[in-house]
């Protein structure tokens, strides 16, 4: 009678062990492969690219949405007006390089206009962020 009671208990432990193993493996997989990043304030669909200049992203990030609006910190503005609105803020931060995350569906004119504007307010380097194409992997 005693042996009958103990057998099912043992079995229970044994069935849980492989589960724990798998869960541990998954945990280790996500720990190693995933990277933790601050999530973007604005959801943009980045353009696909191949060239990587291997530079660190600047902390000042400008977002260009598909509809042409430019986001910077708490400001939302039109691409054409962006340099005027950003001039004082950039002067305070003495920014000479910025990161631009433009939506792939945004108008090229808006992005070029923004870069022209940034040049006029003293930004020397613009880093365009692209996402790795799946074929390149």
């Amino acid at each position, binding site marked *: 009678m005693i042996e009958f009671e103990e057998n099912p208990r043992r079995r229970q432990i044994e069935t*849980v062990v492989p589960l724990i193993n798998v*869960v541990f493996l998954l945990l280790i997989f996500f720990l190693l492969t995933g990277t933790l*990043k601050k999530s973007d304030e604005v959801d943009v669909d980045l*353009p696909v690219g191949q*060239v990587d200049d291997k530079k*660190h992203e600047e902390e000042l990030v400008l977002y260009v949405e598909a509809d042409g609006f430019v986001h910077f910190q708490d400001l939302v503005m039109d691409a054409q007006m962006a340099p005027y609105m950003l001039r004082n803020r950039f002067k305070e931060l003495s920014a000479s390089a910025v990161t631009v995350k433009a939506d792939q569906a945004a*108008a090229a004119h808006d992005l*070029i206009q923004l870069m022209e504007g940034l*040049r006029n307010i003293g930004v020397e380097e613009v880093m365009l962020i692209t996402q790795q194409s799946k074929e390149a992997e």
Partner: protein
Amino acid sequence: MQQGGDDLFGHYEVKRRIVSLTPLIDVVFLLLIFFMLASTFLQTQTLTVITPPEAESEVDTDRTVVEVRVTTGGGFSVDGEVMPLERLSEAIKAAMSGDRDAVVSIMAEEGARVQPLINAAEAARLAGAKTVATTRLGGGE
């Protein structure tokens, strides 16, 4: 081993083991869910563009200029010749005719999107161009 000796003692050991595993599994599951939700697999890269100074000293007329047009529909043309994306880099390289100081001027027509503009800029970079300029066509200010 547990069955041998004191029956009561044996039962105790088995019970303790079962109890201590459950919170561990809970924590591991929580950690797993956290990492699954918080980690990103999107690999990003940077394309650096140097914006030229406001007043360019003088325009060097000797330099070769390669005109790359990005059309409204997302097509490309190099010096007026329509070019598919796959051959764009080669065509730019050919148009530069070995002059690494050649200026590649990317002109985006009105209505063109960012993706083809980036493609054109990358093609110019892959062709070995040092100076890549972007301009807008039409639409005025």
